[in-house]
């Protein structure tokens, strides 16, 4: 049996103190990555800090700023939240492709980005939507763009003593279609071999790709060709994604396979969002 301390608190100030009280403190929201990581020996906590009583983290709202998703909101709740479905369905698609229905009843978007897997399914849609991460700690609050939140595999921008409070997708929402494609070995319960998000904003496009670099990345070469140089041949535009990525070979796919499939999915995404 695993050995660690467990404390649940509903008080943010107490949570900050506890986060700094020991070297290896792991916050618990959904726990779907944490518990698997503990079992595999990847995470060895001295203290598990259960955040589920913190009211500030339970927010799920739309206001004049945009849509804000608290750290304790589950992926299934996001998939069913009408403002998400109506305005930014690409995020619902990303959330929906994580794990299985049961996993999504526990897993959170904050956990998905804090785990900072390059393959995180919510990340590529968040990159395309220019989402921001609201961070809170004993020193106050700060907000960082989601593409500055991912620092490398398993590395995020949180300092010791900080927590992700929520993620916000700011208005204006995109005018146009967005799609998220995930290539994986099985239909569910697998990480992405490659994840591709393509979101049209009128006649412009944003493209983000996952699992092909140390962090999710925007495919700026593709975006540039389409948005600045008016490239309409989606095959040519999609081929440029190779400039933006540095995939590796692992058990989910070879480097070469990733180069190939990411190009196919970007082309398909451009066709479906920008018209054939």
């Amino acid at each position, binding site marked *: *049996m695993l050995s660690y301390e467990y404390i*649940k608190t509903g008080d943010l100030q107490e949570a900050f103190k506890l986060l700094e009280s020991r070297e290896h403190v792991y916050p618990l929201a959904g726990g779907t990555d944490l518990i698997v990581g503990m079992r595999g020996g990847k995470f060895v906590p001295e203290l598990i800090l259960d955040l589920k009583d913190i009211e500030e983290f339970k927010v799920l709202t739309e206001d004049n700023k945009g849509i804000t998703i608290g750290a304790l909101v589950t992926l299934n709740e996001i998939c069913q939240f009408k403002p998400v479905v109506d305005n930014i369905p690409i995020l619902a698609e990303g959330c929906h492709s994580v794990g299985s229905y*049961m996993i999504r009843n526990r897993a959170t978007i904050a956990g998905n980005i804090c785990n900072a897997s390059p393959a995180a399914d919510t990340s590529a849609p968040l990159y395309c939507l220019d989402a921001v991460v609201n961070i809170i700690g004993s020193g106050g609050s700060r907000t960082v763009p989601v593409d500055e939140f991912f620092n490398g595999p398993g590395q995020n921008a949180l300092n010791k003593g900080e927590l992700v409070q929520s993620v916000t997708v700011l208005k204006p929402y995109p005018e146009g279609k967005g799609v998220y494609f995930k290539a994986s070995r099985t239909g569910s319960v697998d990480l992405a071999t490659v994840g591709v998000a393509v979101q049209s904003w009128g006649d412009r496009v944003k493209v983000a790709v996952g699992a092909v670099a140390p962090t999710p990345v925007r495919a700026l070469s593709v975006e540039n060709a389409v948005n600045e140089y008016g490239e309409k041949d989606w095959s040519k535009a999609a081929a440029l994604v190779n400039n933006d990525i540095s995939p590796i070979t692992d058990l989910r796919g070879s480097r070469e396979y990733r180069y190939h499939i990411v190009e196919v999915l970007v082309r398909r995404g451009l066709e479906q969002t920008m018209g054939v």
Partner: protein
Amino acid sequence: MSEKITISFTINGDKETREAAVGQTLLSFIRDELHLTGTKSGCEIGECGACTVLLNGKPVNSCLVLAVELDGKELVTIEALSKNGKLDKLQQTFIDHAAFQCGYCTPGMIISAKALLERKPNPSDEDINEALSGNLCRCGAYQEIRAAIKDAAKK
């Protein structure tokens, strides 16, 4: 030895107060402390769904929940389904359609299906695929499982 915390919860309709070790998963607590062995242990990393239970009415992988997180919550396991020796309609239709071979995944399948029928009384194939996306059947009885769920929906 792992620290213990006193937790209060409802299990299959009955209120209980027990001690739970902080290092224990809900799955282990259900099987080893509550001695309800209908909930099966499979992969223990949330991939197979054999350990599916209802936590506050929602299906979750009990291997990915800590036992101490049960405090204040309502837990339903497969043992709650049959009443006075009479099978739940899902249990009966699984038998009618032979929706299993070895049966190991069946408790998890039925718990996921029960939650599905509560939120969608007339599920489509797509609804069933979605709800059971985390329940693997290595005997490959998926067609029969889908038929059993649709049949139960009519009853």
